């Protein structure tokens, strides 16, 4: 078990490293052109550009630049090209918003996703199943940012009501009630897509599990349908959901909620990433990507461990 863990951790670290390299390649090597010129802006003189190039190190070969970037990252010294602010500081500032959004939405989508999946499977073929399937399909077909805009319009800006506030994030320490109120709409918007998806995946898993031989054995033993459903069918059907949830949660936490944060102006890590990308600002992007990759890789290891706990067949013996 320990060797398994150590191997995974080393693998994870290597992946993170490789991720930084890829980000670097994307932003330095791929566009071509001159980063110094980009930073200097339109009205720069040639001297400006040369100065910028020197002070930022763009005149060095790219592996030197990469190495410098890595050093700065480990020292927490990354500084944005455009805003001159410390990247790590900015990320830390954005984390409460991102965490609040992710955890709240995660709870909602996991709970309702499972509920919807179970109802849909148990009443397969009947009206409730069909209705749920229709709504789930519509839910997955809506682009999250569009849903956000529409929700904001109808419920915050006056389309139907002005019940909800128009974006912005209130820290929980300042005012719990407002914190909740401001996050409710973003939570629902972010959760809709996942509820639809998880509901359908679970429905499929349950319908598959019902046809398994061990469920037939459970019936032959004389167990009640409820017990069969909970102890035998759900136990195996939920395993893939757990895996999915671990990875999706990590993805959203790591900045994957970029669209929701932008639309609702929550100033989380995702929004920070979006702004940086628009400005072609490399250090923040590196920072956010590392932060995101870290979460995904960590959760990936955690999910693997949990999976081994849930399914004894794959435990390393």
């Amino acid at each position, binding site marked *: 078990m320990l060797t398994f863990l150590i191997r995974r951790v080393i693998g994870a670290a290597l992946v993170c490293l490789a991720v930084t390299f890829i980000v670097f390649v994307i932003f330095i090597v791929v566009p071509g052109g001159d980063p110094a010129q980009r930073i200097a802006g339109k009205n720069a003189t040639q001297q400006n550009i040369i100065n910028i190039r020197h002070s930022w190190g763009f005149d060095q070969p790219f592996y030197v630049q990469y190495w410098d970037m890595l050093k700065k990252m480990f020292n927490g010294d990354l500084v944005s090209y455009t805003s001159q602010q410390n990247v790590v500081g900015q990320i830390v500032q954005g984390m409460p918003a991102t965490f609040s959004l992710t955890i709240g939405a995660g709870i909602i989508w996991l709970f309702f996703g499972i509920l919807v999946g179970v109802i849909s499977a148990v009443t397969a073929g009947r009206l409730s199943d069909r209705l749920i399937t229709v709504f789930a399909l519509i839910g997955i077909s809506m682009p999250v940012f569009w849903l956000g805009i529409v929700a904001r319009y109808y419920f915050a800006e006056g389309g139907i009501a002005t019940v909800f506030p128009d974006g912005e994030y209130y820290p929980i320490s300042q005012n719990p009630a407002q914190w909740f109120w401001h996050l409710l709409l973003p939570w629902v918007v972010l959760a809709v897509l996942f509820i639809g998806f998880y509901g359908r995946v679970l429905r499929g898993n349950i319908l598959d599990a019902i046809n398994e031989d*061990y469920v*037939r*054995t459970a019936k*032959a*033993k004389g167990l*009640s349908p409820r017990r069969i459903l909970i102890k035998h069918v759900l136990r195996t059907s939920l395993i893939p959901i757990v895996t999915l949830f671990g990875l999706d949660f990590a993805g959203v936490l790591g900045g994957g909620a970029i669209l929701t944060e932008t639309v609702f102006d929550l100033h989380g890590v995702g929004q920070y990433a979006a702004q940086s990308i628009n400005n072609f600002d490399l250090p923040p992007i590196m920072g956010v990507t590392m932060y995101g990759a870290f979460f995904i890789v960590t959760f990936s290891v955690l999910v693997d461990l949990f999976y081994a706990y849930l399914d004894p*067949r794959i435990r390393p013996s």
Partner: protein
Amino acid sequence: MAERLLDVEDLAVHFATEDGLVRAVDGVSFGLDRGQVLGIVGESGSGKSVTAMTLMGLTRGVNAKFEGAVRYQGKDLLQISDREMQDYRGNEIGMIFQDPMTSLNPVYRVGEQIVEAIRAHDHVDRRRARRRAVELLKQVGIPNPESRVDDFPHQFSGGMRQRAMIAMALSCNPAILIADEPTTALDVTIQAQIIELIGRLKDDFDSAVIMITHDLGVVADIADEIMVMYAGRVVERGATRDVFYDPQMPYTWGLLGSIPRLDRPRPERLYSIKGTPPSLINAPRGCKFRPRCPHAFDKCMEEPKLEQRVETAGHLDRCWLDVTFKREHRDAMIAGESTEAA
């Protein structure tokens, strides 16, 4: 006088499918006494598994229709509700299935699953149930039952898994044990052990056994009575001796002929029945075996009733052929083809 446990009267099971109505079981009748072993033999699609599962109510579903009656100690199991049926499953009638690997839930320990079976009908506490589980594992011949009881199914070998399944099925002392192809997924040597185990347990637990198989060799030793099924019908039924030594159905001859025998001269080629089983949606008119029967003649266009046509009481068949003719001509199929021209 043996106590009659089960009376199946004219059982019919039909399934509605995309292609039409599948008559999986079409008029099956038989009885089962306490302590008796009934072997149900037939190829895939003969309806033997559907019959067995219907006894347990496992074929109930949206697209299934039933006719006839399945009387267990007088009560017609086809008429009772699902909730009542639950009380019979495992408790009065137990069942083991063909593939023990997939029939056990891979994420729960073997002991847990046996305990679950016990506690479904007997309200004992967990510790007592676990002790019973260990005792059962010992009875079915699993070594080190105290430690094995906490193992997972994938840690058991194929034969051991089937033993564990048998232990689980017998845990509530059911009056009837149904074994659906229990040895098909196992090695030949293990097959013999499992059959012998079932025979021994039948006496220990005083249960009746219904053994379902496509292999006559499996039931030769253990069965008291044999029922041959084809296309959803019983085509021959009688005491094991009678069916093996005086078979009346050409289909039975084919089944017997396909078994390699060590006590007979080796044929050039084992007899194999030509053709394929008939469609259960559009069955042929008359005798269902007629299209594949080398001895079919014009009277076979009318389906024979299941009747006693030989001298021995209790030996029934569905064949119009004259008994003497059968006794003269069946060896060609049973003994197999030889190099000399027929």
